[in-house]
């Protein structure tokens, strides 16, 4: 038996052998690993440049083995935009949480998406600000108790949660949006497939791709990891349904640009190639 030993599980090369700062039961550890596995499988660690956010994954620059940049709060899409413009052959990804991506960084998120920046965004939505100790997030659910919504999120005064995939799905620069979760081996496999797709899209030049991972925060939700995943399944997934929200390839287009061109077909100024008597 010892002669036939086969390695079936090991640390991905793109994940450094360091201890993370994530709490026990946190989904960040799983998703960090999935991103690293994808970097390995696509063999792009050497030309990957990651952008870490402000939030619980702020120190992801110490965990990923590729070159890494730490961005200001919410600005990862702007930073990633510029890195990709400087290195079009690089594989550029931003890794962000809900406060970072959907609150302070919403302008950067929407505009990077609508520009069709050819980058990959991994979005961890755990409906709370984890790093600062559990404040209400743009994705906190109605009536969810947090440190800054101690009586529960009151939608009359605090407004409604933002569904990021649904919001971004209207934008022409977007190639691919999928919401996944990591609460079971089956869903972890689906999440990895989505993440791999989001990276492959970038390498194929399809446009902006984002994968939202519905996640948990056992520490700030005040639950065990198992209870947290159960709460997420009961409360978050009905509000944030899993699934593909945009996929230009499945819609029959070669890229976000081609899908956008079809959508604007009736607009003459967007299609100078159709003008009669004019050179292209």
């Amino acid at each position: 038996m010892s002669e036939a030993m086969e390695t079936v599980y090991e640390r991905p090369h793109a994940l450094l052998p360091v201890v993370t700062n994530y709490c026990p039961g946190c989904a960040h550890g799983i998703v960090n690993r999935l991103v690293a596995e994808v970097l390995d499988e696509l063999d792009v660690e050497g030309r990957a440049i990651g952008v870490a956010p402000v939030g619980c994954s702020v120190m992801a620059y110490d965990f990923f083995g590729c070159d890494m940049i730490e961005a200001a709060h919410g600005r990862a899409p702007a930073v990633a935009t510029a890195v990709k413009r400087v290195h079009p052959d690089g594989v550029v990804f931003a890794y962000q949480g809900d406060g970072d991506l959907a609150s302070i960084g919403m302008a950067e998120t929407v505009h990077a998406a609508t520009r069709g920046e050819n980058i990959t965004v991994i979005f961890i939505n755990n409906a709370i600000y984890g790093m600062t100790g559990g404040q209400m997030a743009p994705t906190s659910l109605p009536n969810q108790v947090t440190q800054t919504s101690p009586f529960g999120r009151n939608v009359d005064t605090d407004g409604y949660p933002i569904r990021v995939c649904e919001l971004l799905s209207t934008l022409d620069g977007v190639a691919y949006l999928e919401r996944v979760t990591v609460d079971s081996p089956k869903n972890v496999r689906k999440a990895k497939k989505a993440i791999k797709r989001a990276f492959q899209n970038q390498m194929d030049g399809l446009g902006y791709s984002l994968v939202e991972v519905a996640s948990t925060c056992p520490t700030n939700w005040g639950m065990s990891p198992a209870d947290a995943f159960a709460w997420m399944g009961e409360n978050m997934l009905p509000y944030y349904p899993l699934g593909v929200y945009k996929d230009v390839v499945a819609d029959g287009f070669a890229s976000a640009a081609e899908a956008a061109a079809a959508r604007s077909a009736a607009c003459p100024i967007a299609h100078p190639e159709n003008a009669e008597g004019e050179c292209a």
Partner: protein
Amino acid sequence: MAPANDKVLMKGNEALAEAAMRAGCRFFFGYPITPQTELAAYMAKHMPGRGGTYLQAESEVAAINMVYGASAAGARVMTSSSSPGISLKTEGISYMAGADLPGVIINVQRGGPGLGGIQPSQSDYWQATRALGHGDFQVVVLAPSTVQEMADLAYEAFDLADKYRTPVMILADGMLGQMMEPVVLPDERSLDSLPEKPWATVGHGHKRAHNVVNSLYLTAEELERLNIERYERYAAIERDEQRAESYLTDDADIVLVAFGGAARIARSAVNLARAEGIKAGLIRPVTLWPFPADAIEPVAERGARFLTVEMNMGQMVDDVRLAVNGRAPVAFYGRTGGVIPSPEEVLDQIRALDAEGGDAA
């Protein structure tokens, strides 16, 4: 585009843009604001032909964070704005300083505070030299006073930024940005001649450990150590990079101190005073940080009296007083809100000081 070394007539804002591209800048991220408009427009028109990127960002905040990203990725990069927009950029400038990233930021100043006005002003002196963001840091600040100097300093700013791994600000104003003057443009830099940046995040290619561009240090002692190291670099900048122009100061009894657009007016006032027999002179700081105290100290030492002239309520005068350090009286004259003082107004101030004679000293 004119051949190098030909004299051409250009707006100051355009000279800044053209010189930056000749210095090897191939990435520009901006957001519309008056009175820097021509700079961004020139970049938008001419950057593509050089194979560069002009990108209009969604905000000043995004623009400066794009500068942060492009710089981290090893590129020569620039952004430009005017006073209210610079306030928004201070977040990114602080992060650049904390991550030791080079980059060039142009401020074509207008009147403030708030939305202020769109006429020329120098009221961001304190912001530029004291507080371009939170935390312990300085930014090299260059102050052109002619269109030629707009080109020359924009060109040099990239070398200073790369040499010291720091953001560099060019503090211009709406007058310098909008005026046209003849300018001899600097030579086009070959991109191959630009300095190596082994720290940049360009993809490690499995040939080295990963590079990290970062400004977060949770251990207080480590952050203190890095700040002290950065201040050692600042000390070298203060020692080696002070620049000022002295005009008729050798025998001057009254020495004006003025920078940028105000220095043009002050120089005219000095000439008018000399024509009346008043021994006036001018020290024009070209670097605002490091402040050229070395040019002021010997003049203060021999007892000349100072008159600081600014287009604000009195900001650089603090640095003049620090450099003079009580050795001579320092007066101030300024107009603010976008009002440009006339040489005759300044001459009146010189006359008044002259009438006081040595009494004030």
